[in-house]
């Protein structure tokens, strides 16, 4: 009595995904902690990877009533080799009452292991942004670069002869001919049948009728022949529309001050800011280049490892970084091909004669090439660099500056920078 065999293999897997979400939600606190730790140990490019998370088993246990050690109990075991009634056996290690031997010992051994599982990249990112109170990534804040590409878009009845679709047009013509001629053809068939049925020898009246028939048939034939083989209304042209496509190429310049005054906490703030920016841009563009520039009195292009780890002491000449950036743009990133972004992080401490030069450099050579330039000061004091940049902000629309002194401020500042001041295309 087989009702049926059902192939369920294609029907939803991941039925447990809702349960998994609830599990993650429940342990959000611990996960957040684990994610924060993981981020600190990661390179800026690895930030998007998943992560193995360890939770202490005792934290996720579900309580229930049960028997503890103590009291009296009798347990039956299989495989008796040596014992007879009345034998005494030493209690196994692990306290009184664990009478079931190896099974119990194994259990209590495992009891304190961590519960380990893997967070996927998406889950990791969600928790990461959660940490910064980010509900959803804003996807459309920077307007896409206006580059158009033409796409096929079905057929239209108007167009240039070069776009004529012969097959489509002929198909239309055939159906039109069939449709228009249908009535006449049916009549023709009928009349021809009647003509064929006429006897060979005819009287006068029949002769007349036959003439009549032949006339009608000739008229129908003529009418059918007048149906045009192809008509202007049959013509179909391949239609093409021009659609805007996002520019695929973008470069982000990360400029960070690594002078003696930047301590680890300040660097961490900068790092977090750059991570956000990086993720934001990678979600927007297919390909993204990142140029890391660090500077004290001299600027240098470095890899990410050095960008965040290396520490040098010395004075600060911010303009050195801007000069280097300008050179790199000229050399490798033509503004006509690239969306150029820059983010600069500094504690605002600069050699006092240099700040004015920074402003000039930005105004004259860098800002005209950039889509957006964001300056983040990771210290509270307003020194001359802040003052010079403040003047800049008043006149340059795509220049923005903010202060960040705590990790929790980064996301609000970030959103503020990229939402409120979003660059015009």
């Amino acid at each position: 009595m087989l009702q049926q065999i059902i192939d369920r293999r294609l029907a939803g897997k991941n039925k447990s995904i809702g349960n998994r979400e609830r599990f993650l939600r429940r342990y959000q606190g611990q996960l957040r902690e684990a994610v924060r730790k993981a981020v600190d140990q990661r390179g800026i490019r690895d930030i998007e990877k998943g992560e193995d998370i360890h939770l202490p088993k005792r934290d996720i246990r579900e309580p229930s009533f049960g028997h503890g050690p103590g009291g009296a109990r009798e347990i039956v075991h299989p495989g008796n080799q040596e014992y007879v009634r009345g034998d005494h056996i030493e209690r196994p290690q692990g306290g009184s009452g664990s009478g079931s031997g190896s099974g119990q010992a194994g259990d209590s051994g495992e009891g304190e292991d961590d519960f380990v599982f893997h967070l996927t990249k998406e889950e990791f990112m969600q928790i990461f942004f959660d940490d910064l109170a980010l509900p959803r990534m804003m996807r459309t804040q920077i307007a896409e670069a206006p580059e158009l590409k033409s796409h096929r878009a079905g057929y239209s009845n108007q167009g240039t002869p070069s776009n004529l679709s012969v097959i489509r047009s002929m198909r239309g013509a055939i159906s039109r001919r069939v449709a228009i001629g249908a009535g006449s053809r049916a009549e023709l068939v009928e009349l021809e049948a009647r003509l064929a049925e006429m006897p060979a020898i005819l009287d006068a009246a029949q002769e007349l009728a036959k003439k009549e028939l032949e006339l009608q048939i000739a008229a129908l034939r003529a009418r059918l022949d007048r149906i045009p083989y192809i008509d202007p209304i049959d013509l179909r042209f391949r239609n093409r529309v021009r659609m805007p496509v996002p520019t695929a190429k973008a470069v982000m310049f990360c400029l960070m001050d690594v002078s003696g005054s930047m301590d680890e906490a300040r660097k961490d703030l900068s790092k977090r800011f750059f991570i956000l920016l990086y993720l934001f841009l990678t979600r927007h563009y297919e390909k993204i280049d990142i140029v890391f520039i660090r500077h004290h009195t001299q600027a240098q292009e470095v890899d990410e490892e050095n960008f965040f780890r290396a520490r040098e002491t010395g004075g600060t000449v911010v303009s050195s970084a801007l000069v280097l950036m300008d050179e790199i743009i000229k050399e490798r990133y033509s503004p006509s091909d690239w969306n150029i972004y820059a983010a600069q992080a500094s504690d605002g401490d600069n050699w006092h004669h240099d700040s004015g030069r920074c402003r000039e450099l930005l105004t004259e050579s860098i800002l005209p090439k950039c889509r957006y330039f964001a300056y983040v000061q990771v210290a509270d004091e307003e020194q001359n660099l802040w003052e010079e940049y403040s003047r800049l902000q008043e006149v340059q629309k795509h220049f923005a500056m903010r202060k960040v002194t705590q990790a929790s401020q980064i996301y609000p500042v970030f959103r503020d920078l990229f939402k409120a001041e979003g660059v015009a295309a």
Partner: protein
Amino acid sequence: MTSHHAHAPSDPKIAARRRLRPERTLPAAPLAAGPRAEKPLPDPSDWTFELIESYHEKIRAAAHRYALDTYPNQLEVITAEQMMDAYASVGMPVNYRHWSYGKEFIANERSYRRGQMGLAYEIVINSDPCISYLMEENTTAMQALVIAHAAYGHNSFFKGNYLFRLWTDASSIIDYLVYARNYISECEEKHGMQAVEDILDSCHALQNYGVDRYHRPSKISLAEEMQRRSERLAYAQTQVNDIWRTLPRRVERPGEADEAKRFPSEPQENILYFIEKNAPLLEPWQREVVRIVRKIAQYFYPQRQTQVMNEGWATFWHHLLLNTLYDEGHLTDGVMIEWLKSHTNVIFQPPVGHRAYSGLNPYALGFAMYTDIRRICENPTDEDRDWFPNLAGTPWLPALHHAMRNFKDESFIGQYLSPKVIRDLRLFAIMDDEHQEHLRVSAIHDTQGYREVREALSKQYDLASREPDIQVWSVNLRGDRSLTLRHTRHNNRPLHDGANEVLKHVARLWGFGVNLESVDQWGDVSSHWSIAAPEDATH
């Protein structure tokens, strides 16, 4: 026979009469098989749907001859991932969402991916039609084994065993689970995930205490559930308030205070039921959630009491059915060897002290016992005639069916564990008494010990001794409204430390303080836990 379900009358009265009929008349011996097959069924290791169908047909015919009465079968082919999904939601095809199922899934998935755990070959659901999952990875031989084991073994057990007949309603469980899932997700939308999760956590902590052990529950019927729900919710709320209505007057007349009026008048074993009906502060939707957890716990209650019987029965039948097919020429040697290897693994019983030992294997014990019942019927020894005078020499098929239908693990072992099985498995009992310095071997497989081993093992499977006996003892109606639970110690065994955590959950449901007293065999309260009322009670 299997076919009579298909012709089941639609008139519910007739259906009910049929259900109450005590036992079907069974043939004394299996019906005769047809002529020997000319050639065996093909046995490529990759299965096809046609192949499954032809194996199923042979197995069905054999099961029919052995009078196995089953629900209609629905075989579903699933992937390993889907199997893990099913694992995670307690083996059911649908269930409400809860983080603990997510935890389960994550743990299973991880150990599966690292190769630490093989998946079960099958999951079978006590539903009508009976759903058996076949894993895609199984070979043809394994699919045949699974069909015999699940679709005929377990299925006939679900339909025949008295506990399942009394306590579960196979025809409505899937509908009820769908209802539960929808209701819980509606609640999540209305009241927030956190609120629902809190209630579910608390109910889960008590789900083993959401069961009527002694009086028969009414069956779950979806139609009725839906119809009555709203009135019930409204009515229940007024009832609850009723309990507390006497409060002010009592306060006015303190002279009466000592004359304690007990509430509840008798201790209540079903703690969740008591909470659903009487917890003062629960909102109607929360009561319904309590009810859902309770109903589902009730559905699983028979399974927890028939592990040995159920697995033993299924194992006995896959073994017998596939051997029968082989004898009739339907199976190739290759198929035989493959399923026998798996069968041997399943019934392997490592001896105590072996590193794979983790207690008695219910498959091994159950298979040994059913096989032995057949042996006692067919080839009794003097010892068997002495121990089982009503069994020895009688037709084996009705005897076996009787044993399957009318017992649970505890009574099945108490009734049928024979000296031969005790000897074969070399069973022995160890007494662990905290007052003694050493463990003592209290009985082994000898004349003196058979009955004691049997009794000890029977008790071991008694749910009441496995789980602490905790009941609702009283409610302080006049004072702080606190609820008192009472644990009656079995063999003076105390509760473990988790009790305090569970009490917090009870307090969340109850809304006021909760006490737990542990009472020893002399009736004295030997330990006591107390949890204050939760601060932001429910609202």
